[in-house]
């Protein structure tokens, strides 16, 4: 039986899970949830994900939501298959966890409202967007430093810590028009170029057909 992913291929959070599946060579089926008609807020979907968000997965009897938790589960369960996304030792895994937390607590908290405002809100709050850009600048300065001495965020190998950033980074480079924040930083730019050249990412971009 193949794992079912409920969500939209073009939506950021489902992309996190899809990318994990593609890196690990895990077969999956996408069940489209139409965010444009607010299908995710309807009673039938709320049974799957009580906060009315995508994605959710169903794998036989197992049901899970929260894209990062789903990614961790599959990266753990299929540790010996495909790309190693969690490091080899407990200590390495904890550093991967550390930078996954950084993505959720520092990066996404500014990138998400930036994207919502710039890309999805017709008359967005200009002052708020400027404030958020200042915050994102500070976060990216920390990344620039980290990536000066590390090929990837958690060290020498690509991991979930890098993967978890990719959907948000794509918005930054494209629809949000903030690419200069990346290209002006030598190490962050190098990192993004390298991880977005990965076959799994290219496959995801093909599926999303932007």
């Amino acid at each position, binding site marked *: 039986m193949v794992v079912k992913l409920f969500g939209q291929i073009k939506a950021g959070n489902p992309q996190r899970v899809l990318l994990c599946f593609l890196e690990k060579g895990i077969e999956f089926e996408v069940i489209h949830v139409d965010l444009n008609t607010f299908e995710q807020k309807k009673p039938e979907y709320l049974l799957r994900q*009580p*906060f009315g968000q995508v994605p959710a997965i169903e794998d036989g009897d*197992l049901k*899970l*939501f*929260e894209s*990062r*938790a*789903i990614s*961790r*589960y599959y990266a*753990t*369960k299929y540790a010996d298959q495909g790309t190693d996304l969690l490091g080899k030792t*407990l*200590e390495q*895994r*904890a*550093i991967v*966890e*550390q930078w*996954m*937390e*950084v993505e*959720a*607590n*520092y990066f996404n*908290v500014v990138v998400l409202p930036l994207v919502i405002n710039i890309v999805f809100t017709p008359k967005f709050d200009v002052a708020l967007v400027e404030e958020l850009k200042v915050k994102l600048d500070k*976060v990216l300065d*920390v990344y620039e*430093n*980290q990536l000066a001495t590390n090929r990837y965020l958690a060290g020498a190998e690509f991991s979930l810590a890098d993967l978890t950033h990719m959907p948000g980074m794509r918005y930054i480079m494209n629809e949000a028009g903030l690419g200069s924040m990346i290209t002006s930083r030598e190490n962050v730019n190098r990192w993004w170029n390298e991880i977005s050249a990965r076959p799994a990412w290219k496959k995801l971009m093909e599926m999303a057909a932007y």
Partner: protein
Amino acid sequence: MVLKVYGPHFASPKRALVTLIEKGVPFETVPVDLMKGEHKQPAYLALQPFGTVPAVVDGDYKIFESRAVMRYVAEKYRSQGPDLLGKTVEDRGQVEQWLDVEATTFHPPLLNLTLHIMFASVMGFPSDEKLIKESEEKLSAVLDVYEAHLSKSKYLAGDFVSLADLAHLPFTDYLVGPIGKAYMIKDRKHVSAWWDDISSRPAWKETLEKYSFPA
């Protein structure tokens, strides 16, 4: 060399502290003076480049982000104390799910309430009444989901207490105390029972006793 936790008097570090105490792991704490801006000094930034607490040093090993520290401690000391990650990979999946819900959905509105009600005057910014109202509404909607879930599940990830429950302790302690919104918990039968259960655990009582912010 004993594991060190920096900034024990603040809320986020208490996620790490309660986990260490639950697992019976010896540790030391190092105070960080946020009021004096110690967290923005080079010495501290070398441990935590974002200038927030906690930071943890375990011999030669450094790690920050309180929930990452929880996972590290729970995994490293799996064989002692309660199993806070569950028994199976599937159990762990549920723990991770609710840990992420805490971080992405529960914490943000509660953080707004914490900053604007408890710390605005101390930190010198105007308290935003509109944001407080919106944040309370958002947190209320989240707690409604918790109420439904906890009517079918003793703890968040199942019938065992886990990192997911413990992660909620420090800021919910603020909510029912200095923030002055205990009714948000008490008015919900199952959330209230769950809160009474987890906040009366000896490890949490010890955390509060030893590391509450000096009055």
